[in-house]
């Protein structure tokens, strides 16, 4: 269903629920994988996905720009993912560095994480990057989003994003090759 139609049908009580269901079905996987790449753990990604759609449901009636629905949902998912990591930090009463260290360790031990050695190494390399740089890399490299879209999601200029992405690629290259 087109985003404009989803928004239109969401306004009417008769079609509100079916419109929201269409929205969930359309974006659930993208939201989940976007969250998963940030929080790494499946249960955390599940929580983030649900929180994201709850917030989308509450705010959708006031949302007007159908062409920006996707980037708006992505922005919510991004914020929820980062919040999830902060909650983890507070719950464990540790530093964010320690949270990332724990995530890095989980890449080798989590039963819902498995792949080629270089794929696992890439995920560990990403956890070394500054948070925003990691976000930009994920969206550009894995999700293949345009810089304009990433700019809408993160609020960073296109020029800044390009610079950040190029730097991230170089750092990762160094990590992967051990150079």
């Amino acid at each position, binding site marked *: 269903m087109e985003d404009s139609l989803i928004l239109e049908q969401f306004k009417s009580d008769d079609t509100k*629920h079916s419109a*929201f*269901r269409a929205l*969930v*079905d359309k974006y*659930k*996987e993208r939201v*989940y*994988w976007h969250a*998963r*790449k940030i929080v*790494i753990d*499946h249960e955390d990604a*599940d929580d983030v*996905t*649900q929180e994201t*759609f*709850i917030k*989308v*449901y509450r705010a959708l009636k006031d949302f007007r720009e159908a062409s920006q629905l996707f980037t708006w949902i992505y922005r919510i998912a991004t914020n929820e993912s980062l919040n999830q990591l902060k909650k983890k930090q507070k719950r464990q009463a540790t530093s964010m560095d320690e949270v990332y260290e724990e995530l890095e360790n989980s*890449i080798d031990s989590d039963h*819902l*994480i*498995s*792949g*080629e050695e*270089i*794929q*696992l190494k*890439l*995920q560990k390399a990403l956890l070394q990057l500054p948070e925003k740089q990691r976000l930009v890399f994920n969206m550009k*490299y*894995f999700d293949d989003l345009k810089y304009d879209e990433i700019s809408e999601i993160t609020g960073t200029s296109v020029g800044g994003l*390009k610079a950040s992405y*190029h730097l991230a*690629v*170089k750092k*990762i*290259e160094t990590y*992967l*090759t051990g150079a």
Partner: protein
Amino acid sequence: MTKKGKHIKINQEADKAYFDKLTDEIMNRVELEDSLLYRDSSLKALPFTTPDGYFDQLGDKMMSNSVEPKVIPLYANTWLKYAAAVILLFVVAVFTLKPADTETNNLLADISEDAIIEYASTEESALDELFLDEEVMEIVLDDLMADIAFTYEDMIDFEQGEFFSEGY
């Protein structure tokens, strides 16, 4: 320089800036293409998996968590309310009213039929007033339903006084 000439010069400068930038863009892209991340396509695959059937059930779980429970009003309209009240009164009467008291019946038998007819035709009974006034009738029925609702407290939400269905 003519106006047209100045216009052409500005355009040429703008074009030059664009093409200089374009060159930088292309060189940056080429640099990316040479990196391991773009040479090894297997790196694009994420090493993350989900439990079996996760996405199939995610939609249903989302709807039950995100969407407000659909409220089914207990009374679709006033007539339905009246009908429900009559049925309930009947049920209550059948199960709670005591058998006619013989002594009371005997007392009534002592009153003449003419006296009864005169009373019914001239006096305004409280019951007549009750049924003539719809607003009062509404209040009485609401009170009655509230009493009955208390008996079935596990089925009805008190805060809103309405019956909630699961899902949407």
